C-alpha cells in the first residue's frame, strides 16, 4: 500500500499548489483526481483566466512555480470601478514602488506550470486519472480505496475537490449557501485599443461587468477577459447569441472605449452562489479552496482564497512536522481552522456586501451606490482596505504569501 503524509483529493490549482509546497519542505503527498491531465491540457484555451493576487504570486514564486510563469501574465496596474458608464468612478492606483495589484493568467497556463512543478517534485505521487471509491478516517490515520482497487494511506486527508466536494459532504460538514440568481458569463475578447494594464469593473443594474487585461496571444492582438454578470433568467438568451452579436453587446457595455471587439475564446457560464462550510476541519480532515468556501467572483478572490488556505495549511503542517507532530494532529487542524475561518468569512462577507450594494436595481439604490463609491474614494483607509483586499494583503498572512520560506 502506498503511504504518504497527506492524501489530497483533487488535483486542481489549489490541490497541486499544496502538494508542491509541502514537497519543498519534505512532506509527502498523494494527489488523486479523476481528471486526465494530458486531456485537460491538450484542449486549447478555454477562455478561463484568473487574477492572481500579488501575495498569491509571491507564494508561487517561493515554491518554484513562478519560474514556469515568468512573463506569461499580464500585470494589473490599476483598477477602475464605475457606476455604469457615468463619469466619476473610483480608481485604485498603487504608488510606483508598490508594484501591480495582481497578475492575470489564463487558467491553462497556471495548470501547465503547476503540472511541470509537480512532475519534478520527488515527494508527490500523482494518481491522475484515478477515482476514489471510499475513504475512511480513524483516530490512527486515513485510508482511501480507489475504484481501480488500489488503496493508499496517510495521516491527513485534504479535500480540494472544489465546490461539490464529496469529502466535505461525506464528513457531514454543513454548508451555508445562498445563490444570487445571477449568472457569470465568461469569455475572452480581442479589442482595437490597448487596455493599458487596467482592470475595469463596471456596475450595471443587472450586475457587474468586468474587463480584465490579458497579454496578447500569439497573434499579438490586444486581449482582455470578460466576466459579465446578468440575471440568471437572461443568460441562456445572451449565450445563444451568435458570436458577432455577443461581441457587439460587450462593446456596447464597454462604452466603446477599447474600440472594436471580437470574441477569441469559447464562452462559458456559471450560476453565482456563495457557500461557506460551517467547519473546515474534522478528524484527520482539512478542506481547502472551493471545497471550504465559494464566493462571488466580483473581486476575483475565489482562487486567491484557495491559495491562502494552501499557504496557511502548509505553514501549519510544516511547523508541526518540525516539532514531531503527525500531520493529522488535532492541535494542528485546530490552528488551521482558527486561522482560516475568520479570514474567509471576512473576505466572503465584504464581497457579498459589495454584490448586494451593486445588485439592487432602482434609482435610490443607484444614488446609494454613487454615494457609496464617493465615500470609498474619500475615505483613504477604506480605499486602502479595498486595495489590500485586491492584493490579498489583509489579515494575518501566512509566510509563503509574504514571499518568505516557511
Amino acid at each position: 500500500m502506498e503511504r504518504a503524509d497527506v492524501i489530497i483529493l483533487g488535483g486542481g490549482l489549489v490541490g497541486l499548489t499544496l502538494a508542491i509546497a509541502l514537497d519543498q519542505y519534505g512532506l509527502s503527498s498523494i494527489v488523486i483526481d479523476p481528471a486526465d491531465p494530458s486531456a485537460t491540457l491538450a484542449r486549447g484555451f478555454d477562455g478561463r483566466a484568473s487574477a492572481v493576487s500579488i501575495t498569491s504570486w509571491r507564494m508561487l514564486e517561493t515554491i518554484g512555480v513562478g519560474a514556469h510563469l515568468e512573463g506569461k501574465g499580464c500585470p494589473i496596474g490599476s483598477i477602475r470601478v464605475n457606476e455604469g458608464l457615468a463619469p466619476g468612478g473610483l480608481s485604485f492606483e498603487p504608488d510606483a514602488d508598490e508594484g501591480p495589484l495582481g497578475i492575470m493568467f489564463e487558467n491553462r497556463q497556471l495548470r501547465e506550470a503547476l503540472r511541470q512543478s509537480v512532475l519534478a517534485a520527488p515527494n508527490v505521487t500523482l494518481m491522475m486519472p484515478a477515482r476514489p471509491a471510499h475513504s475512511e478516517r480513524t483516530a490512527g490515520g486515513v485510508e482511501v480505496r480507489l475504484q481501480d482497487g488500489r488503496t493508499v494511506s496517510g495521516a491527513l486527508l485534504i479535500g480540494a475537490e472544489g465546490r461539490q466536494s464529496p469529502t466535505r459532504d461525506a464528513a457531514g460538514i454543513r454548508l451555508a449557501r445562498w445563490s444570487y440568481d445571477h449568472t457569470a458569463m465568461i469569455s475572452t475578447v480581442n479589442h482595437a485599443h490597448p487596455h493599458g494594464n487596467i482592470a475595469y469593473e463596471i456596475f450595471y443594474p443587472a450586475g457587474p461587468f468586468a474587463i480584465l487585461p490579458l497579454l496578447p496571444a500569439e497573434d499579438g492582438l490586444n486581449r482582455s477577459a470578460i466576466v459579465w454578470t446578468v440575471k440568471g433568467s437572461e443568460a441562456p438568451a445572451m449565450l445563444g447569441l451568435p458570436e458577432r452579436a455577443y461581441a457587439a453587446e460587450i462593446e456596447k457595455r464597454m462604452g466603446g472605449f477599447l474600440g472594436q471587439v471580437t470574441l477569441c475564446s469559447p464562452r462559458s457560464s456559471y450560476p453565482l452562489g456563495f457557500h461557506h462550510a460551517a467547519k473546515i476541519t474534522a478528524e484527520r480532515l482539512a478542506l481547502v479552496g472551493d471545497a471550504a468556501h465559494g464566493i462571488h467572483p466580483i473581486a476575483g478572490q475565489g482562487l486567491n482564497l484557495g491559495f491562502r488556505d494552501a499557504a496557511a495549511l502548509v505553514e501549519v503542517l510544516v511547523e508541526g512536522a518540525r516539532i514531531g507532530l503527525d500531520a493529522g494532529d488535532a492541535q494542528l487542524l485546530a490552528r488551521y481552522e482558527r486561522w482560516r475561518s475568520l479570514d474567509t468569512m471576512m473576505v466572503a462577507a465584504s464581497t457579498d456586501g459589495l454584490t448586494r450594494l451593486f445588485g439592487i436595481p432602482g434609482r435610490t439604490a443607484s444614488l446609494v451606490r454613487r454615494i457609496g463609491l464617493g465615500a470609498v474614494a474619500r475615505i483613504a483607509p477604506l480605499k486602502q482596505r479595498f486595495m489590500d483586499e485586491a492584493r490579498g494583503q489583509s489579515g494575518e498572512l501566512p509566510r509563503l504569501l509574504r514571499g518568505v520560506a516557511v
Partner: protein
Amino acid sequence: MNASTPIPATIDPAEAAHFGKLAQDWWNPRGSSAMLHRLNPARLSYLREQIDAHWQGDGTTLKPLSGKRALDVGCGAGLLSEPLARLGARVTGLDAAWENVAAARLHAEGQRLSIDYRCGGIEDLAAADGEAGSYDLVTSMEVIEHVADPAAFVAGLAAALAPGGLMIVSTPNRTARSRLALITLGEGLGMIPRKTHDWSKFLTPDELTGLMAAAGLRVLDRRGLDFMPTRGFRLSADCSVDYFLTAVAG
C-alpha cells in the same frame, strides 16, 4: 511486564493506578488528557529550540534527532515519545503504569513508529545492562511532581544521560498562581482530571535546579509555560504556573 511487576521505590502506587485508568483515553484529543494535547505544540516547540541550540541545528530539518537515543521518563501513552521518534530518535519510553505502556505500544504500532516502551521506574533502567549513560536526550515532562522521591528521581535521570547529552524537564511551579490555574480552575472545572495534582509536591524552579546540581547537572535554560484561556499554552518568561529546565552534565 505486567501488573505483578514489583513496584520500584520512586513510584507512588496510588499515582500509577490513577494514570492506568486514564490510559485508553490518553489519545483522545478531547478526552481526559485534552490539556496535555493542547500544551503539546508549545512544549515540543521548546524541545525543538533546545535541541537546535545544543546540536547546532537550523530549525528547518525534519529529523534533528537522527542517530540519537532518547529516553522519555513518565511517557504515558506516548504523547511526547512519538514526536521524539518522528524527529528521528531511537526512543525508549518508560512508564510506571503498565496500562499506559500497553496503550502506548498499541498506538505507536498504528503510527508505524518503532518505540521501545518499558514498564518501570528510572532505577529499573539504571539496573539494566548498557542503559546507564547511553541517552543523548532525556526528557521527563509533567512527571517529577508525581514521584515519591524527587532527588532520587533526578539522580536516576542524570545517570541515564550520555556524555554531551541534553536533559529537559518540565513541571508545575509551587505558587498561588499554579494552585489557582491547575487545581482550583483546571481540576475544579474538569479540564484536568481530579486528583491529578498534589500542590504540596510541586517544586519551585530553584528547588529543582538545586536537585539537578546535586545530581551533577548544570542548568542551561529556564522557561515558563503560560496558559491563557483565549490563546492556549504559550512559552513565556513567566515561570509561575509551569516551567521547563534544560540541563547538561557537569
